[in-house]
């Protein structure tokens, strides 16, 4: 079963598709999840996902706005899609019939 941050990373990479690489994934996570994503968390999680065979990474072409440095491109593997889907379904199942509406006390 995936961890929460692993799922966030896979979702961001899936949304970015061909344009998925370190900085873009980080920005996507920060924008959509509204939480800060450190470079350390991003790269160590990427390594873990890669060692599990859930993503594949390779070095892309260097670009001028990066000071001529290459990007670490990311692609989700079939196994990664299955794992993310399994996580999503599990969360959906476990959330059925559960309301997270915050009940405020009316008593003064």
């Amino acid at each position, binding site marked *: 079963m995936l961890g929460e941050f692993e799922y966030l990373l896979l979702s961001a990479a899936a949304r970015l598709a061909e344009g998925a690489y370190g900085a873009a994934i980080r920005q996507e996570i920060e924008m959509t999840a509204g939480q800060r994503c450190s470079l350390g968390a991003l790269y160590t999680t990427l390594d873990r996902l*890669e060692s599990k065979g859930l993503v594949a990474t390779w070095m892309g072409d260097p670009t001028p*706005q990066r000071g001529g*440095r290459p990007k*670490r491109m990311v692609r989700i593997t079939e196994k990664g899609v299955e794992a993310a889907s399994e996580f999503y379904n599990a969360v959906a199942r476990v959330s059925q019939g559960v309301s997270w509406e915050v009940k405020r006390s009316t008593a003064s």
Partner: protein
Amino acid sequence: MTRTGWWLARTLSRWLKPAERDAVLGDLAECGAGDRAVLEIAGLIARRTTEPWRESRAWVAALGVAIPVALALSLSSFALGGRFDLFLWVARNHETLDPTTLDDIGLTLWPGIARLLVSSLFLGCWAWTCGFVLGSVARGAAGLNAWLACLVVAAVALFGLNFRGRYPYAVDEGLFSLAFYTVVFPLILQVGLVLAPMLLGVREALRNHSRVALKGLVWIIAAATILVLRNWLYWPFRFRSDWMWMYLAYWPFLFVAVSTAPSLWNLEERKHDSIESN
């Protein structure tokens, strides 16, 4: 980012693998991380360093191999030094030495030298094997574990310079109070027979990308511990009649266990991760 901040970030990033370094510095440049870049890289390095220690094998390597074996190797090399120096003294003074002196102190020169050389070879091989196991068990933690083993060896050298076995010969021990015999020579043996072979073993394991499964490691440690405990008080301080058996038992056993019998000991080949190969 200020020039100093950028310089710091680049200096810190040298701890990362070359391919990853470029990707990380590129990401930081692209998102204009500013002076926070230094903290980001430091955080990544900290995570990289601590990540392997989440696995139990890193702790098994540290507590089961690095500390106890480095300690045993180090003490053994000191004990061996306490035998070698007598022969060095004989070699240095052979011209003026009364031939009956050797008989008087009970020293048999050539068999003694042969045993010392075999023991030295044994110690070196054991140190190499220890390094090889250290590098094979937990590759990610191999660097820190190697440092830990070096630290143990250095601690023994610092605090154990006075550690000397009792001479099995009737010789005036005051002869060997010279700094060369008490400090320099033991340190040469520590470096030559323990540190150098051990680090070469680690390097070889990392180069081969081999990895011992936890089950195999537990067997290796258990067998080696039993063998060591059985003759702890004797090997290599005194040469018992079964020293050859000891020689045959330890080093080939460990070496064969970790390198040439993968199916028996669950040895796994670890593939390069893609960032490494890039």
